[in-house]
């Protein structure tokens, strides 16, 4: 296995509410991100996907747990990240319309990270901006344009170019294409894949779109109410989803072809609503919607086990070392 670039150990982020309660946005997430891979983090709204992103990038402080980046725990109390660490971990936001300054032209937006993170002089910075634009496949004269005068997909590519300005090793993509049309999404995604090959980047790709992850991710992790349910290499994940929630998610996707219909797990009628993260259900958080709910699920929190090499699942249906029951295969 290649080098681990980022490791989350039992990461927790609670947001206190008036009255002593708290929103448990992220409730004990542990995962590893390897160099050069794309880890897809998938979940429904409110499951804590973006909170993980913001905590890793340093916009939120973690309540508990460790964020180990290249051997340093970024989440320890009172730790201040140095400039190099800030430059190496970058983020691309969902909505390029609001993440780019609407009163600054593209060139100026791209120049700021260069001013902070590099020692280039004025002329060198201009050359680097041209280079960055070429890297994401945009024409060089875009640097004179304002964000409002370019399309949504192009704006998102500018955000990617801006993130590349500080020579990052690791980029968090927080739903980078969910505001875009599919024909535009395809262009942005193929640029991202191309960049990853060229620059050896690692991505933490946050999305709610499993079909997209099938084509982009190396491994996929499913998040439900702040906890991980399942984590597996992409091919294995889609070939044999084990967690009941994963199966429900997969069978809910509206697909456009018959071939895809065959890949989906047998029809599971999705039921119920996502519970509030303030009053998280006891035991396994998914037990209120689970069709295979057992007595133990209501009381005891399941632990993550490695059921197959690098296929992790967090469910009482599975026991470590025991073969997987035939019905789920």
């Amino acid at each position, binding site marked *: 296995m290649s080098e681990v670039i980022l490791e989350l150990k039992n990461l927790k982020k609670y947001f206190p509410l008036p009255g002593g309660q708290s929103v448990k946005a992220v409730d004990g997430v542990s995962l590893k991100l390897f160099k050069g891979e794309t880890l897809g983090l998938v979940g429904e709204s409110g499951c804590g996907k973006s909170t993980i992103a913001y905590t890793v990038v340093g916009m939120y402080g973690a309540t508990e747990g460790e964020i180990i980046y290249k051997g340093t725990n970024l989440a320890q109390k009172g730790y201040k990240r140095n400039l190099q660490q800030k430059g190496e971990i970058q983020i691309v936001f969902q909505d390029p319309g609001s993440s780019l300054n609407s009163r600054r032209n593209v060139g100026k937006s791209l120049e700021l990270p260069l001013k902070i993170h590099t020692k280039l002089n004025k002329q060198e910075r201009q050359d680097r901006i041209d280079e960055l634009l070429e890297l994401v496949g945009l024409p060089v004269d875009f640097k004179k344009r304002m964000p409002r005068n370019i399309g949504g997909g192009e704006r998102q590519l500018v955000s990617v170019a801006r993130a590349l300005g500080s020579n990052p090793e690791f980029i968090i993509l927080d739903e980078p294409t969910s505001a875009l*049309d599919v024909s535009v999404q395809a262009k942005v995604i193929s640029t991202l894949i191309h960049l990853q090959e060229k620059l050896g980047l690692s991505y933490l790709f946050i999305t709610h779109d499993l079909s997209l992850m099938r084509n982009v991710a190396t491994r996929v992790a499913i998040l439900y109410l702040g906890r991980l349910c399942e984590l597996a290499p992409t091919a294995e994940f889609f070939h044999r989803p084990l967690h009941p929630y994963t199966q429900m998610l997969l069978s809910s996707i509206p*697909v*456009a072809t*018959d071939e895809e219909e065959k890949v989906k797990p047998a029809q599971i009628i*999705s039921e119920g609503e996502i519970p509030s993260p303030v009053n998280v259900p006891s035991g396994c958080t998914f037990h209120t919607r689970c069709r295979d709910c057992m007595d133990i699920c209501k009381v005891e929190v399941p632990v993550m086990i490695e059921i197959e090499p690098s296929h992790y699942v967090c469910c009482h249906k599975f026991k470590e070392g025991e073969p997987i029951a035939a019905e789920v295969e």
Partner: protein
Amino acid sequence: METNNNILEIKDLSVSYTVANVVTHVLEKVNLTVPKGKSVGLVGESGCGKTTTMRAILGVLPSNANIESGEILFNGTDVLKMPYNQLQEFRQTGAGLIFQDPSSALNPVISIKKQFLTSLKYAHKDKNYSSAQLYDKAIEALNAVSLADPKRIMNSFPFQLSGGMRQRVCIAMTLAGEKELLLADEPGTALDVTIQDQILRLIKNLVETLDLSVIMVTHSLGVIRQVTTEVNVMYAGSIVEGGDTHQVFEHPSHPYTIALMDCLPKLTGTGISEGIPGRIPDYDHPPAGCRFYPRCTYALDRCKSEVPGKTIVEDDHWVACFAAEEGKVCPK
């Protein structure tokens, strides 16, 4: 197809907007029919005129819109020529609209009960129902959309309900009003995929059991395939391909539909395509011929100046494309 079987017929509808003295020609000769008891899909990317079409049907276009030609027949009566009173009545009793975002469709500070009964009062205004009867109707409709504990829901405010529940309440309002036509504008887009699945199932179920007619407007091909029996693919204000959903998805024939299907990330993991080059044309100077011409890989010379007519591909499947007409479009 006889006229009396169609609940809604849009014929040659062209709509333009005037923005700062510039006329933008958005809809160009749109034809769309909704047979009774069927669900018809209208699919296209953002800015292609889906919402303009919806708004034109209900007569709620913004004031800078001009209807240049065409008619919209609802049960044989032209909506565009209706006097104001009749139009109000059509909105109250004829057609119901479900919005994309259920949280902005309901007033957050008025209880569901009050909003529901107000809408029902107008929908059934000529039937002299007592308010107790209307209340029963509302409860019945809330049950029909499988909302548990309808009485509690009637007494709650919209902000106390989740997105999926709010969307169900909106659907229930249309149902209880016994409206014949349901316009659904991206009903699942703002919801999570498991909740969207529940809502789509519900709509499909209602079409099958209650003989409701639905126009489903969405950008998602998957949603269209799941819910509708007929589909219309819209690009830059004109419908480029249409027909039986199954046939269109099995053999997409317009270069745009083919490219769009290609762009969709597939669960089978066949990789990501490069996308469609270029972008939607400016509506103030749209291409004179086929509007997809500048981005089309199969473009012929005549596409530049002539607007393609309908070509029948299969028994219930047509396409508006010269290249397809000459058999030059071959999907992979």
